[in-house]
């Protein structure tokens, strides 16, 4: 661990105010050091939204290397920390988070988590999986996102449609069935914002 990392971790541990904590978390996140990962994950459980946002941003920047540590910690988390962790996983897009994101998109209590997970399911980096596993995974994502298009919250439906658009681009063999479902949403959804056509090579 570099001296800078240690200094920032010490600053987090002794932060006496919310501002000081957020500043120290930002500085640690900016190090982009794998040694910062456990502390950034710990911060997700501090019940401080500003600090959590900074930690999530740092974990997203770190990317794939942060995925396994996050997954390993998920079960022990309290509710709020799990929500932040799911957001980080959604943005990183590593397919190892598939199970977590499938569950979060369809079942999480917090709409911000369902929203992030639905969008994240569309952004998974499928190239990391063998082809057979990839198709099974894409089918499961399709089913989950088609469920999320029925969510009570407009923003989750919106995110699911964004996710479906990304999925159609990543998996063109699914584009026809996705387009049909989106055309249905364009006429049936109660919110006008959901009815807008989305740009995309598959949607003309």
């Amino acid at each position, binding site marked *: 661990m570099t001296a800078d990392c240690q200094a920032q971790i010490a600053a987090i541990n002794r932060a006496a105010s919310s501002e000081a904590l957020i500043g120290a978390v930002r500085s640690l996140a900016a190090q982009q050091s794998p040694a910062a990962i456990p502390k950034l994950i710990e911060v997700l459980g501090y019940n401080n939204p500003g600090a959590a946002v900074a930690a999530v941003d740092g974990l997203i920047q770190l990317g794939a290397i942060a995925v396994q540590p996050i997954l390993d910690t998920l079960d022990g988390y309290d509710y709020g920390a799990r929500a932040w962790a799911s957001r980080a996983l959604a943005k990183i897009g590593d397919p190892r988070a598939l199970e977590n994101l499938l569950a979060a998109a369809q079942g999480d209590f917090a*709409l*911000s988590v369902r*929203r*992030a997970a*639905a*969008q994240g399911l569309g952004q998974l980096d499928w190239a990391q999986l063998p082809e057979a596993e990839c198709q099974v995974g894409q089918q499961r994502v399709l089913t989950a996102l088609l469920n999320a298009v029925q969510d009570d919250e*407009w*923003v989750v439906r*919106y*995110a699911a449609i*964004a996710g479906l658009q990304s999925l159609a681009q990543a998996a063109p063999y699914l584009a026809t069935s996705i387009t049909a479902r989106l055309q249905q949403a*364009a006429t049936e959804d109660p*919110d*006008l*914002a959901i*009815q*807008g*056509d*989305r*740009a995309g090579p598959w949607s003309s």
Partner: protein
Amino acid sequence: MADQQAGLTVESAIANLRQTDDLGLRYYAAWWLGKMRVGDRAAIAALLAALHDEADRSPDGGYPLRRNAARALGKLNNPDVAPALVACLDSSDHYVREAAAQSLEQVGNAESIPALRQLLAGGVAAAVQVPGKPHLAQPYEAILEALGGLGATEAIAEIQPFLAHPVQKVQFAAARALYQLTGESQYGDRLIQGLQAPKLPLRRSALIDLGAIGYLPAAEPIARTLAENSLKLIALKGLLEATLRAHPEPKLHSDSGQIMALMDGLL
């Protein structure tokens, strides 16, 4: 609360609202009928009756049940309730007046405009804090927003001075109304400036106002504002829907495409 909600039906909610033994059940039932948008005659009759309740009193002399009933009536999409809400604008309870003004905007009945204008009497000079209370003489934000939403162009001259009211949220409400009434960009731009306010509650307020008026030049400033993504998404949804209403076909328009791109970045 969740247990109560799970057990409620339209009939039991109306019955809860009509009984007088358990004030908590009545209060909850009034809220529930609004949330579920139960617009049938029996529900409306029970809510209108609740506007005259004398049993449920707060320590400061307010009427909690009346507040909830007035809020619920705004959600039922029935212009016939406007006269009862107009009568609430004379209530001794500030929060009943506020709920009534908000609901009158939602109900969309322009006949309530004169009564709303009455509450601006005395202008900014009269719009001072009530001694010992956390609020001004009238619920000015709700009144100004209602006048804007109801298209009360005859009130423009009375609204303008509120741009200089010492309370910034009142200024925002005036700018929001004046944009709706005039379409002039100076008022929308003023709300964009509000997105830079040092205090988060003010930035949130400006986000909500810009979403409500669907002011297109605000799209990128909204996306950049230091506030929760959830609120920025709601504001951008307001802009997107304004664009889609202005350009119903085709539903993909360059403005709406840009707004969606900003929204996607906030998911």
